[in-house]
Structures are given as structure tokens and as C-alpha cells.
């Protein structure tokens, strides 16, 4: 298994193909293999709009919402997955959910996302902006796994979320969801 999750991007994609230039929010320009670039549906869409014959020239696609430090990280992920994933046709929503159910977070991706939560959120936002569904989904699953272990109070504290309910409103929600609270194992007896 590659150790690319440790943020080295030295792994190269075998197919030379077309090169696509993109620039980050700070204006830094990166040259990507076409296969890597097209894992972003946004870049794929732009290239298709421009017509692929123009892809080889010096035009640079501006990714104005993505900071360089995050783009570098995403590039590691894109390069790894471009080299390892099979190309899949887009799936219906339910099929997508089932496919995700049948796929544990691979070890490589777990290592990749073993970073500060704030970084995961930044990657998630950038993946959303670039429309890289699989990466966004991985980030969501990772954050959900963190939420699963926390109480409401811990979540508020961890993310600095203000409780904007009045005491009456909160009490009302508590009543409505009381049946979920400390849900005991369903008990019976088999005498």
C-alpha cells in the first residue's frame, strides 16, 4: 500500500495524456494529468464546455474558492485514486448509498483523513466546490463517526455552537425526543 496519505505527491500517474492547468485562490498554478483533473466534475464540466481541443493550450482554470494548502492535500487524494479506482458510471441515489454501505473507509483514506477536524471540514468544502463526490462522502462519513460518539452538549462545546433555543423550546424538543434518550436495549423475557 502506498504511503501517499502522508501528503507526499510524488506518485505519478502512468498515462502521460493531456495536461490541465488550474490555479488556486492565491493564484498558484498546478499542472494536472487529465485523468486526475477530471475526477472533479466541475473541472470535467468546464473542459467539456471549452471543448477538449483547447485543453492543451496555456489556459488556466481558476479554482477561486480553493486555497493552495487545501488543494495540495486534495491533489494527493486525486492522484492516489486516479491510479487505483475503477471508472464507474454515475449511479442512482439508492445504488450510491448501497455502494457506500458495502465499502468500509479504506485504510489509505483513513490515514489521509487522520488530520485535524478543521482540515477535514476544509477538504470537505473544497471537495464540494470541486464536485468530487467520493471525497466529500468520505469526509462526511468521518465527521459523522465523530458525532456518533458525542452528546449534544459535547457537540455544542466542540464546535462552539450556540444553543439558540429558549428553555421552553428546548424542553419541548426534549419531550418530543424523550423516547430516544438513553434508549435501553429492548427487553423481554424468555421464561
Amino acid at each position, binding site marked *: 500500500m502506498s504511503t501517499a496519505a502522508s501528503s507526499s505527491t510524488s506518485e505519478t500517474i502512468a498515462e502521460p495524456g493531456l495536461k490541465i492547468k488550474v490555479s488556486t485562490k492565491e493564484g498558484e*498554478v*498546478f499542472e494536472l494529468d487529465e485523468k486526475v483533473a477530471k475526477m472533479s466534475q466541475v473541472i470535467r464540466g468546464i473542459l467539456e464546455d471549452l471543448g477538449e481541443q483547447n485543453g492543451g493550450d496555456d489556459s488556466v482554470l481558476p479554482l477561486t474558492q480553493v486555497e*493552495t494548502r487545501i488543494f495540495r492535500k486534495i491533489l494527493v487524494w486525486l492522484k492516489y485514486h486516479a491510479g487505483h479506482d475503477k471508472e464507474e458510471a454515475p449511479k442512482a441515489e439508492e445504488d450510491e448509498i448501497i455502494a457506500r454501505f458495502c465499502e468500509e473507509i479504506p485504510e489509505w483514506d483513513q490515514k489521509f483523513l487522520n488530520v485535524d477536524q478543521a482540515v477535514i471540514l476544509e477538504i470537505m468544502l473544497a471537495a464540494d466546490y470541486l464536485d468530487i463526490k467520493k471525497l466529500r462522502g468520505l469526509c*462526511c462519513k468521518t465527521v459523522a463517526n465523530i458525532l456518533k460518539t458525542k452528546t449534544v452538549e459535547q457537540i455544542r462545546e466542540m464546535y462552539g455552537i450556540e444553543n*439558540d433555543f429558549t428553555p421552553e423550546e428546548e424542553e419541548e424538543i426534549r419531550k418530543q425526543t424523550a423516547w430516544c434518550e438513553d434508549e435501553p*436495549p429492548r*427487553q423481554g423475557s424468555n*421464561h
Partner: protein
Amino acid sequence: MADSSEPFDLNICSLHLTIDDLPDEILVEIFGELEALQQRLLQRTCARWKRILLSRRLQLVVRMDVKIELKGKDPRFKFSTFPALVKRATCLCRSPHIGRCSDDLLPVFRKILHNRTTVIQLNWIENSESYSLIEALTAWVAVFALVSQVKTPAKDGTLAEGANLTHVMLDNAVAIDGLHNLIVLAQTRTGRGSDLWRNHDPVPFKTIAYRRCRFELFGYYTSLFNNPSQYRDSLMNPFPSSHCSWVRPPMRVLDLTETKEALEQAVANSIIQSLPPLPSSIWDTLRDKVRELSTVSQMRWKAELIRKEKRFSTAQADDISLEDVEWSQLGCLTLLFFLCFDDVRIVAN
């Protein structure tokens, strides 16, 4: 041109982004990964989370933990033979206690399901190390009750909660009947296995996906819920202690639009792939068993060889000598049948 291979330690960056900065659509995707009861509890976090957690988008997929812990389990009951388990299960099913467990679960199912829900994920939670087959059975009773539940449609004709379920995902399920639990699940839905739907037109399941599930091996041959006709005359016992009695087949998506035979084959392949190597001691076990078989049972074994093994497919039962069979040459599912076969039982007409 930026050097994309330049190492960069993101963890030392000073970042101020929090989960609250994420757009609604991403929060929907995060919350969609959570279990249904936790989704409800998190409504208390803040007004925005409550609004998102109540959004219709989250009604499409429901994930739920299935926890069953039977109180006062009979410590004397040991899973010794399949007939004993059937007897025990029959007693339990007649008693109100399993029903009570289902009755506890069903209102929860009804609260978390919507008529827009198309995908349900059920996560088996084993509460203790002593989680037993009886508890697993109880969980299945509840799940069958869930998929076959019918609430009278509203006057405006809207369907009951869960009526549009088409995809079932099972995590960590313990299935006594192995494949048959799944097939009964599908049949219950289509009305073939139950008359509960006869006044309605439920959407049949399209897929059942499973991962990390544990299937009892003899469930391939016989079933508490759906005894396949070809084995109706057989008494099955657990495997000899030298062999593991269950497998964890790899995760799989079953396409329920396929025939029952194709489904059986798919799961049989799963079992074969995940079966640990059979110990050499089983050849002696089988030779010993053959010597003790009654004539009727011998005929049953020969019929099984003709049915399952290509090399015997054109043979006549009278031409087969069981004592001369090269057991090591047989397919593992055939061997498993012989290992768990005990006797032919007299079936009353």
C-alpha cells in the same frame, strides 16, 4: 508553477472553520450517515440543526440499530441440535415475550420510517458476549414484522410508513437461517410468504445488501422460517465440534429481481468462498456416519449426491456405494450437508 509534491503539514495551520460553517447540503449528507435515534437527539443542538434534521431529504434513508436483549435467558438452554432449537423457538414464538420485543421495536420503526423512505439500514447490536441465537431469532421476528407491517392507508390513499422501502441493508446480522432469512424477508414483502399485504400493493424489495453478517451453515439446508421442500424430510444437527458452524460471508448486494435459484447460487458461492478449510478428520466422521445410516437415510444421501455432484448426476441410486465414495473429491456444500444430516424424519401426511 507550484510544486505539487512539496510536503505540507496541514495540522499546524491555524484554521477557524467549524461545522457550523458548512452549507445545509453538506450537513444533510453528514446527518444522513447517523442512526435514526441519534438524528432525533441532535435536534436539540440548535435551531439550524433541528431544521435540517427534519428535512424531507433525510427521510429517504433510515439507519437504525436493532438491539435485543432477552431478560432472564434460560441458562440451561444450549444450542445442541437443530430440532431442539426449533422446539425452543416454537415455544418462544408462542409465548408473549418475543412478541413483546417486536412490540417494543415496531412503534420505533413506525416513528422513524416515512412513506418516502426507500432505503433502510438495520444494524444488529449485540449487547453482550452471550448474545445468543435466540436473541438473533427475536431480532428477525421483529424485522419480519417491520417489513410486513401494514397500517391502513389514509383516506387520501397515501401509503403507510415504510411502504415504499425498496432497499434493505443489514449490518452485523446474525442469521440462523443464513440465506433463508433473507429470502423470507424478500418473500414477506412481495406477499408470497405472507398474506399480510393481500389488501395492499407493496413495493417489492429490489435489493438486500449485507456486510459483517454471520450465517449459520446449516441454514443453507434447512430453516426455521422457510423449510426448503427438498430437505423437509431431513433432521439436521450442528456440525461436529471440529468444524466451525457458521461463516461470515463477504459483503454482498443481492438483486432480488433475480430468480430464487440465482440468489441461492450467489449466496452459496459466498459461503464457499468464506468457508475455512475442512479438517481432514471429517473423512473419518463421514465414513462412520455412513456405517450407521438407515436404509432410508442412505437413499437420501444418494439422492443428494445425484442432485449436487456432477460425477453422480447420471448415476442410478442403486449403483452408488456410499462406502466407496471419495469424500475428499466432493464439493464443500455437499460435504456440509452430510456433516449436519442426522436422519430422515417421518413426515406426517
